[in-house]
C-alpha cells in the first residue's frame, strides 16, 4: 500500500500542504467573497421587496383616500341639494305668506276706503239736502212772500224734497 502510494506520488507532506492550501482559500473566499456578496444580494432583494411592499401600501392608501374623497364629495353634494331644496321651499312659503298678507291688507284698506267714501257721500248728501231745504224754504218765502204756518211749511218742504228725491233717484 505504501509502495503503491509512493509510486503514485502521494507524499503526506504535500497532501497536508494541499489541504491547508485549500482550507486557506476557503476561509479567505468565505470571508471576503461569499459572505459579503451573498449578504449584499440578500440585502438588495430584501430592499427591493420592501420597496415594492411600500409602493403597494402607498397605492392602497391613495385609492382609499380617493374613495373617501369621492364619498365626502357625494355626501356634500346631496347635503347641498337638500339645503337648496329646503331654502327654496322656505322662500316660496314666505313669498306666499307675504303675498297673502299684502292682499289682505289691500282688501282691508279698500274696504275701509269704501266705507269712508260711503260715509262721506251720505254726509254730503245729507248736507246737500239740508242746504237745498233751506234754499227751497228761502226761495219759496221769497216767492210766496208770506210766511205760512211753520208746521205746514215744513210739511210742504219735506214733501217737495221727497218728490225731488224720487225724481232725482
Amino acid at each position, binding site marked *: 500500500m505504501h509502495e503503491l502510494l509512493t509510486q503514485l506520488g502521494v507524499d503526506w507532506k504535500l*497532501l497536508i500542504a494541499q489541504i491547508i492550501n485549500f482550507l486557506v482559500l476557503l476561509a479567505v473566499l468565505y470571508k471576503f467573497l*461569499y459572505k459579503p456578496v451573498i449578504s449584499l444580494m440578500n440585502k438588495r432583494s430584501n430592499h427591493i421587496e420592501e420597496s415594492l411592499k411600500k409602493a403597494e401600501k402607498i397605492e392602497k392608501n391613495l385609492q382609499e383616500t380617493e374613495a373617501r374623497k369621492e364619498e365626502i364629495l357625494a355626501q356634500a353634494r346631496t347635503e347641498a341639494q337638500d339645503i337648496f331644496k329646503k331654502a327654496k321651499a322656505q322662500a316660496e312659503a314666505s313669498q306666499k305668506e307675504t303675498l297673502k298678507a299684502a292682499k289682505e291688507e289691500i282688501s282691508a284698506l279698500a274696504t275701509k276706503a269704501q266705507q269712508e267714501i260711503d260715509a262721506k257721500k251720505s254726509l254730503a248728501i245729507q248736507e246737500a239736502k239740508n242746504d237745498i231745504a233751506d234754499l227751497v224754504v228761502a226761495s219759496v218765502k221769497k216767492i210766496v212772500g208770506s210766511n205760512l204756518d211753520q208746521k205746514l211749511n215744513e210739511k210742504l218742504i219735506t214733501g217737495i224734497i221727497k218728490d225731488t228725491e224720487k225724481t232725482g233717484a
Partner: protein
Amino acid sequence: MNISLAAEPLFHLGSFPVTNSLLVSWVVLFLLVIIGFAVRRKLSLVPRGIQNVVETIFEALLGLMDSVTQNRKQSIKFFPIVVTLFLFVILSNWMGLLPGMGTIGLMKELHGERVLVPFIRAASADLNMTLALAIISVVTVQIFGIATIGLKKYAGKFFVSPLKEPYFIGTFVGILELISELSRLLSYSFRLFGNIFAGEILLTVMLFLAPYLVPLPFLMLEIFVGFVQALVFSILTLVFMKMATVEHAEH
C-alpha cells in the same frame, strides 16, 4: 520527453519538496484571493463592474444548486465549499494548459536520470492535490450530515443492528454504505487526477509529434474537460452533502 506519474519537485525547503503542482496550486490560491479582495473592495448595494459579473455567476450557481437541494437556505449553506471546490479545481485544471506546460523547466537529476522538470503542471495532475480535495469533500459531507440530522441518526445510516428488521440485510447495507462513503475518496481523487493527467500527457505527446496546429483541437478538448471535471467534482460533493442531510426513510 519525460512522463512522471508523480509531480516532480522543483526545489526543497528543508525536507519539504516544492513540486511544480504545488507551485501552480499556490498561484491559483493567490489569483483567487486577489479576485476576492478586488471584489470585496468594490462591493456596493448598486452593483458596478466586476461585482455584476460575480453576482451573475453566484446567482447562476445558486440556481443550479437549488435544483439539487430544492432549498435556497441549504444552497447558501453549501455554497462556500461547493463553489470554492469548483473555482479551485477549474483554475487548477486550466493552469496546466498554459503555454510552457511540460516544456519550460529545470534540468534535474531524478532517479539517476537527467530530466526536464517543467515549472507548470496542472495542480490537479498531482494525486496529492486531488486526494486532498477528496478528503476535504468527504469530511465536509460527514460534518454537514452530522450537523443537520444529528450524530445518532447519521451513524444509524451505517451501523444497523442485526436484531431489527430487516435483520442482517440492514446491517450489510449499512456496511456497504460505509464502504461507498470511503470509496469516494478514491473515486474523487482518481477521476480528477486521471482526467487531467491524461490530458497533460496527450497534449505533451501531441506537441512532440506535431508542434503546430494539430494540438489545437486537443487543447480545446482539454479546456472543456477541465470545466467538466470541476463541475463534476463540485456537483458530486453537493449531491452527497444533500444526501447526507436527508434522514433515512424508515422501513
